[in-house]
């Protein structure tokens, strides 16, 4: 038992002391397995899809040119585009129709990135796609031949949110057919972010509590003796008190009461008169 324990500790020591976590070295993925249909792959995650080195697309009588580019991808290329997180080193490319292009795709990050093109003729490119993928730091190389005609192709990384956060470019064949949106440094977003400071001083829940209190007051009524009307009453009382005091000076409590009743009766009489006058007015018509 002790023996096993010591052995396992030894094994652990050996395993864990190996320098496996040293900075991963740059890997040039040059020997990939061909799976047919232009699909190449190796066991360390590099991939080419839609490779076409020799078939001329319909409408091309010959290759217009043979070009080679190196595209870099990584977090650091987003530095010049504030508010982005990933980018290619170049956002726009232009080539003549029927050009044979070799792309050296270099990933400078330590995660996967892709250089993916859509919309190519499907008879030549499975799913109409040319695709390079490699986990960095590393390089993968692929070749394709562009069809004839002016067209703008989207090139992007399809890993969740990489295109949205900046890893997007456009490749124009001939004159292209317009610009794509949201290309860093080239075109604006279709849906813009709202940078206005909408954060209210009070939190949402405070506002809700206030609103609820208000609603509750409206429904159940304010039961306090002291409200705005109390203050108004107080003011009226203070103003009229001297007048009333003069009026009632020398009267007994009973006399004051009789006087008040008389006032009320008079006001009722006036109201009744006004109403009957109004009714007569309608009747006459």
């Amino acid at each position, binding site marked *: 038992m002790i023996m096993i324990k010591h052995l396992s500790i030894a094994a652990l020591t050996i*395993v*864990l002391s190996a*320098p*496996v*976590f040293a900075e991963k070295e740059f890997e040039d993925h040059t020997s990939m*397995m061909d*799976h047919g249909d232009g699909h190449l*792959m*190796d*066991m*360390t*995650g590099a*991939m080419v*899809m839609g490779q076409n080195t020799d078939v001329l697309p319909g409408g091309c009588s010959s290759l217009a040119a043979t070009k080679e580019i190196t595209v870099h991808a*990584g*977090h650091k290329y987003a530095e010049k585009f*504030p*508010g*982005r*997180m*990933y980018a290619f080193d170049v956002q726009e490319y232009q080539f003549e129709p029927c050009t044979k292009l070799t792309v050296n795709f270099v990933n400078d*990050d*330590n*995660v*996967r990135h892709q250089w*993916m093109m*859509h919309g190519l003729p499907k008879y030549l490119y499975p*799913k*109409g796609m040319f695709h390079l*993928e490699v986990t960095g730091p590393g390089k993968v190389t692929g070749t394709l031949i562009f069809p004839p005609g002016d067209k703008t192709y989207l090139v992007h990384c*399809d*890993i*969740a*949110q*990489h295109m*949205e*956060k900046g890893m997007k470019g456009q490749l124009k064949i001939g004159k292209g057919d317009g610009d794509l*949106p*949201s290309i860093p440094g080239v075109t604006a977003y*279709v*849906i813009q*972010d*709202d*940078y206005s400071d909408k954060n209210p001083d009070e*939190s949402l*829940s405070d506002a809700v509590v206030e609103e609820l209190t208000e609603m509750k007051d409206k429904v159940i*009524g304010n*039961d306090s*003796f002291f*409200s705005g009307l*109390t203050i*108004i*009453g*107080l003011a*009226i*009382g203070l103003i009229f*008190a*001297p007048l*009333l*005091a003069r009026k009632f000076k020398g009267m007994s409590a009973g006399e004051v009461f009789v006087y008040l009743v008389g006032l009320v009766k008079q006001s009722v009489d006036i109201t009744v008169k006004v109403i009957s006058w109004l009714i007569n007015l309608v009747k006459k018509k």
Partner: protein
Amino acid sequence: MQKNPLGLLLGAAVMLMPFAASAVVSLPKTVEVDSGEVEAPCNENNPEWRVAQTVDGVDMQESLRCSPDNPYAIAAEVKGTNNISMQTLMNTYYAADGIIKKNDMDGDGDPDLIIIKLEVAELNGHSPDFKGLVPTFDIAPGVQPGMWVFAPKSRGMATNSFVGVDANPLLRAPSPVIRVEQGDTIWIQLENTHYFPHTIHLHGIDHPWVDSSGEGNDGVPQTSDKFVLPGQSKTYEIRPRVPGSFVYHCHVQTHVHLAMGLVGMFVVEENRPNNWVQTFNVGAGQVRHPSKAILEDYDSEYDLHYHAMDKELHSIIQESNDPRLIAKKMNREYDMTDSTEDYHTLNGRSFPYTLRESIIVAEPDKNIKLRMFNSTGETLAMHTHGHKGTITHYDGVEHNPVAQITRDVYDIAPAQRNDLKINTTDDGFHSYGEGVWIFHDHREKGITTNGMNPGGNVSALVYKKYLNEVGLPKTIGESIAPLFTKKFHDRKLPVWQNIDDWNSLGEIDAEGYVAPPASKMAAPDVTPGSADIQAPTDNSFRNLIFGLFLGLLAYTLVVNRVKVIAFISSLKGGK
């Protein structure tokens, strides 16, 4: 010109009286709401995936549910992407270097060095180009909260196809269950494909605080680890000596990152010879290739990961594109102490989608192992219909067998794991017999989706004879078809539409409806106790008079102040 328009109007009104009279006393009419498109309850059925089979030498149990796990993916998860045929790998979404297994150091027939790669994926995220979300993952029809998950390293596109925007099958909630063997050397390589920093903390799992190179291995940015920045990777190394049900999660801004979905189950299986364990259980649920030790005591095994989401938090990533804005809104403006959980999920989905992939399939006289994990913010009260389960382990640690508790509600604190043994012996105690027995959270909000029932984390333990040909329970209750519509989750369908011949609880059509004048009360209400109910009162007049009284009183006091002072003095003097 008509001379007497008023008379004409009155005449017309009199003539219309009979019609008006009926409108005066009736209430608005009932209408039926069109439920719109109804999804097939089982939409993607791969019958050939459901049977027990062997792929690349990997045996896997049958999986009779509607959406079974892909057998080729299971082969990759058991043998590693480096030990399967290219054809098998091509039938999965795994990257070629997604799971590497090698070095049988103790010569017991299974690999002892396991290299697991994890990426970070955003689901239902924002696009600056169109008004939709990418890539989508519905927790229920049309319900798409923004989420982050750890995902196995995949290859190719994030979406399932070129035409749609739905996420590929490896990009889904919850973060995948990771399964390893006790004593193996495990390297977990986090490749941060996201736009925020993240780490991995190995909760409950035996791990050294620093790795072999002296770097932090505990994932806590404040004490023991650096951020793993966007585009960077980091390897965590462990050799767990103790088996059990554990957890891994991001420890950066944990309160929101965990809630966003960066949390998963981590199971360490007991060491046995020739024990190839299924490294990932994507989407949790049934383990189709259980470990040797589990099969000694159980017939089948299920991982049940419960999660909950606050829609205010989960919509932040859908409203902005700029990562700086998202960081500010999520970490400076959003206040979790004011939050409420709106979506309650089991294995990444809510009812009725749970029926597709998170049912437990049972047969009589069997033992089923359930590993329940709570990554919500509150304690769950899980309840099993028709069965009393025995809690064998808390947080991966076996409970003293003689003291183990058998019950039908299992309280699970946040981050806690309960291992349950479900015994399907029909003895009136462990099981009440065969049927379609649901199991769910008994905090009632847990069975809602955004406050609407049925929804939430409900699923069912279904006996085989109650499963139909596509793997859905043969139910004998009300139709569940309305639940498979976006209309329902849009709150547009009435709760009890068409429950009888004349739709007595249907939708009200009040358009153009004008309420008649209320009838006069015939007699005062003398119902006993009615006096206790106080009608709302308007106190304005009372308060005015009260104020007037106070004013007069004050004046009187001022005018007679000499007398009052004298009176008070006399009181003092009288002492």
